[in-house]
């Protein structure tokens, strides 16, 4: 019979405790617990349920991280300025936006965020509000009022781009840069789009998905001054949400034209399919810091929903080896 030393070239170590550091595939016997142990067992990525929003709504904006997210605005119906903060377990309602709206852009953190643009019947707006962790204050308007736009960055260095301008189904490529007090128009997207998603910083970001003349997979990369077309998503969707960085992004949900539970991870070069949401929906909010950590909340499924899901990327762990 072939033995472990013959296969591995080493004997299984007999240890009184798990080693402080180990390599994937390393096997040892823990004499204290009486278990044969192996390191590097892959735990697949997955979505799990999170605490429900206090107010079910869609077309809201999200910012922050998976465990410190903020959701604001949206459409119940009617349009709302409701703002809620997530602590990784539950949502708490805080001060409303001054201007209730839907399909707005949002970026920043739970304690310092920007809400910009959106739709208040009967027209798109350029109103921008700044969140200081306690309340919203109106600051400089966008140069071009629009809704279904996307943004990323911080409360002092951000970017908004794309969107829907009158007449109602007209996509735009306009990009505006935020310096903490005012907006300046900068380089346009290569392709006008609306209802897309984005993630990153004011100097290194991504735009992906949405609808131009048709629902698109197009992805563009922002370097602080210009957009460049890069590898496309796998599944064309509009009304999707995204979070993360230019090199580690998670794109979730949308409509294609059926409601989508698709999730994709971008690694700076290519998009890869990830485990699906449990509930297909569009126009949700999302907060997250990378392609392996995000919270996706609210949306239209097809009616407004309060459902929250939390994404955790693949990881490795140490496990006991058993015969059962």
């Amino acid at each position, binding site marked *: 019979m072939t033995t472990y030393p013959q296969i591995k070239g080493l004997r299984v170590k007999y240890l009184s405790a798990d080693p402080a550091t180990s390599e994937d595939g390393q096997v040892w016997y823990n004499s204290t617990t009486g278990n044969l142990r192996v390191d590097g067992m892959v*735990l*697949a990525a*997955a*979505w*799990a*349920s*999170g*605490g*429900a929003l206090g107010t079910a709504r869609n077309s809201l904006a999200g910012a922050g991280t998976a465990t410190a997210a903020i959701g604001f605005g949206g459409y119940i119906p009617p349009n709302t300025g409701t703002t809620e903060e997530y602590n990784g*377990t*539950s949502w708490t309602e805080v001060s409303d936006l001054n201007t209730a709206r839907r*399909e707005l852009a949002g970026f920043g953190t739970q304690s310092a965020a920007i809400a910009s643009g959106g*739709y208040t*019947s*009967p027209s798109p707006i350029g109103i921008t509000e700044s969140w200081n962790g306690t309340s919203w204050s109106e600051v400089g308007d966008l140069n071009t009022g629009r*809704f*279904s736009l996307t943004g990323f960055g911080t409360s002092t260095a951000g970017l908004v781009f794309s969107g*829907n301008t009158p007449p*109602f*189904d007209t996509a735009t490529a306009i990009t505006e840069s935020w310096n903490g007090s005012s907006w300046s128009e900068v380089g346009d997207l290569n392709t006008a789009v609306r209802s897309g998603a984005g993630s990153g910083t004011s100097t290194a970001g991504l735009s992906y998905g949405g609808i131009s003349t048709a629902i698109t997979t197009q992805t563009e990369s922002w370097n602080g001054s210009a957009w460049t077309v890069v590898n496309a998503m796998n599944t064309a969707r509009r*009304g999707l949400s995204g979070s993360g960085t230019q090199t580690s992004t998670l794109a979730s949900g949308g*409509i294609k*034209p*059926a*409601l989508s*539970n698709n999730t994709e991870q971008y690694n700076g070069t290519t998009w890869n399919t990830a*485990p699906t949401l*449990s*509930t*297909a929906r*569009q*126009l949700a909010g999302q907060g997250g810091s990378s392609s392996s950590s995000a919270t996706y909340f609210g949306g*239209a*499924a*097809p*009616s407004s929903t309060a*459902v*929250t899901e939390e994404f*955790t990327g693949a990881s490795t762990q140490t496990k006991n080896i058993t015969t059962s």
Partner: protein
Amino acid sequence: MALFIYGTATNTGKGFFTHADRRNFYLSGQPADVWVVGNNEKGALWLAEKNGVEKTKTEAQALVTAEVTAAQEAWDALSDEQKTMRDRPSQITLP
């Protein structure tokens, strides 16, 4: 044997389904609190633990269709301008 179990259950938020649940069995949330669960021991146990009410596929489909129809009627009542903001909800066919 059928591939799926159908039922209704109220999503209670955090912990309603875990990462491990999603790795262990098929789980899909639908309108009207309908859940489609893999027809295996872990899936059946999950639905029972969530005080789920098992439905036939036909019953579950009727609940989903009714909710989507209501959403379609709400969309039909919007102004032409607002209809351009999003597509009319599509009916959902359960797996």
